[in-house]
């Protein structure tokens, strides 16, 4: 069984000119944790994911921990007890920015013919959503979610 069999063919998407505010609305409406960002001709650019969004709400040095995890980290942020207004301010400040500024282009992509185990591996490696891209055209072919994968594995004959 290949990824083609388990992917969602017409997933919700974002365009580079969509604003962060619109992207957040879409994440909330669709109840998803990441959305693919594509050109108007459906060429895949990258993912706009909750990890990047949440990172923008935190102090920069904390948000960048994931990029160099071995470097100094702050055990927790409990000392920022009354940080809600700051986070709201941060969210407001980026609401009009185009999502193209925050696209994660490092997310590994799969091809429609990639085996399902490749999707399982990516989901295992904490990716909740894995983009499937046509290797010839570079266009988004579909999206594999955690739910797609586990449901198909359970029911496939």
């Amino acid at each position, binding site marked *: 069984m290949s990824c083609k069999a388990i992917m969602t063919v017409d997933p919700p998407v974002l365009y580079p000119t969509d604003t962060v505010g619109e992207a957040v609305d879409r994440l909330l409406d669709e109840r998803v944790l990441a959305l693919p960002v594509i050109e108007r001709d459906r060429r895949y650019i990258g993912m706009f994911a909750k990890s990047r969004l949440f990172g923008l709400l935190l*102090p*920069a*040095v*904390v948000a*960048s921990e994931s*990029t*160099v995890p071995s*470097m*100094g*980290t*702050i*055990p*927790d942020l*409990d*000392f*920022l*007890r*009354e940080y809600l207004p*700051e986070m709201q301010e941060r969210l407001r400040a980026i609401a009009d920015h185009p999502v193209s500024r925050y696209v994660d282009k490092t997310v590994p992509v799969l091809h429609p013919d990639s085996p399902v185990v490749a999707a399982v591996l990516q989901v295992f490696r904490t990716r909740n959503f894995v983009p499937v891209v046509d290797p010839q055209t570079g266009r988004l072919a579909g999206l594999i979610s955690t739910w797609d994968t586990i449901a198909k594995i359970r029911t496939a004959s």
Partner: protein
Amino acid sequence: MEPDAAAPIHLLFGLNPMWTATAVLVATYAVIMSEKVNRAIVALLGATLLILLGIMSQEAAVRGVDFNTIGLLIGMMVIVAITKRCGVFQFLAIWAARRARANPAGIMIMLQIITAVVSAFLDNVTTVLLVVPVTMVITEELGVSPYPFLVSQVFASNIGGTATLIGDPPNILIGSLVGLTFNQFILNLTPVIIVIQATACLLFHLLWGRRLHATEQARARIMRFDAGAAISDRRLLVQSLSVIAIVIAGFVFAHSFGIQPATTALFGAALLMLLYCFGQPAEEQSERVQSIFNEVEWITIFFFVGLFIVVGGVEETGLLKLAAEKLVAATGGNLGTTTIAILWSSAVLSAVIDNIPFVATMIPLIHNMAPSFGGPEGLMPLWWALSLGACLGGNGTLVGASANLTVAGLAERAGQPIRFVPYMKIAFPTMLATVAIANVYLVLRYLP
């Protein structure tokens, strides 16, 4: 019949031992400086090459490794790895910020003092890894550039580390290989370090601090920080601080009972691990101990092991004795001139090369000067000059000390890069000023 394991094997190809060892030492230094190959790999390669070439036997190599240095480093690394989990260092930084009423200039001074004091008792890299991230949160919330704070903390970590036997690897090396005690470092270096740190605070205040301003709104944000909430594990906090107090007391008092710092540090590490794991199931204990050992900087440890062997091999050939005689001859056998020459050459060289191999090489070299200066007691000003020069010199450039590169890495990660040349423009003259103070101190106290 068993071969005599202690005897060196025959030198390959009939090479001259002194020049072969010199070639290995120079090549090791050159590759370490190039930073093309990890320094632990280079040191171990150099060490094993000396054995393979017959410069020294394996037994002589093992004897050359100073367990006191290795044990002290590992013991302190384990203690820090556990202590930092309770959030005490974040607490200190936030407490300092609030204590300064969120005034940026005041915070800058307070954070320098905290960094210097913590660095005197912990490894410099560890100190900046603990203090810098929370500094960057504070500066971001204040809406001021983190640059002055980070550069001044680099200085504070290297200056503070000079104050004690355990503050900086060069001091650990000097203390262990020369047999100087924790108290001797405190009595001879801490007074001048207090003056140097105060001067650095003043210079950085005049340069940057007095121009730093934050809005009332930003300062109010800092004042809302809850320092107490930064302590994530109060039980661990009490345990860690108690063990650190025991270890420091051990450094101060145990030497008179013949107990070396390594034993004290490793006892403290074992005791703290016991307290941290006490009452946990066996599996959890294994996981905790594994995660603690993962935080030991094995690169540094193996670098030291390799370096001890390389320098030991060179020492065996008599090269360093020859170099010592030449250096004494160059300074006319005058203790004052030799002291000042060691201070300044150590400072300038440590600004551009790794000060650990430099100090490791200088120690036997200075040892060999004893006959010229009336025995080991006559060498004391030279040891303090070496320590002050090597530790303070590390501030001169971005590559002068590991803590500098660590801060630069953290700053880069958070989008606030510290570049080599702009840093050096400020740091090198400031470093020279701190060494000048050390120079005056050495002259007044030891070279009347």
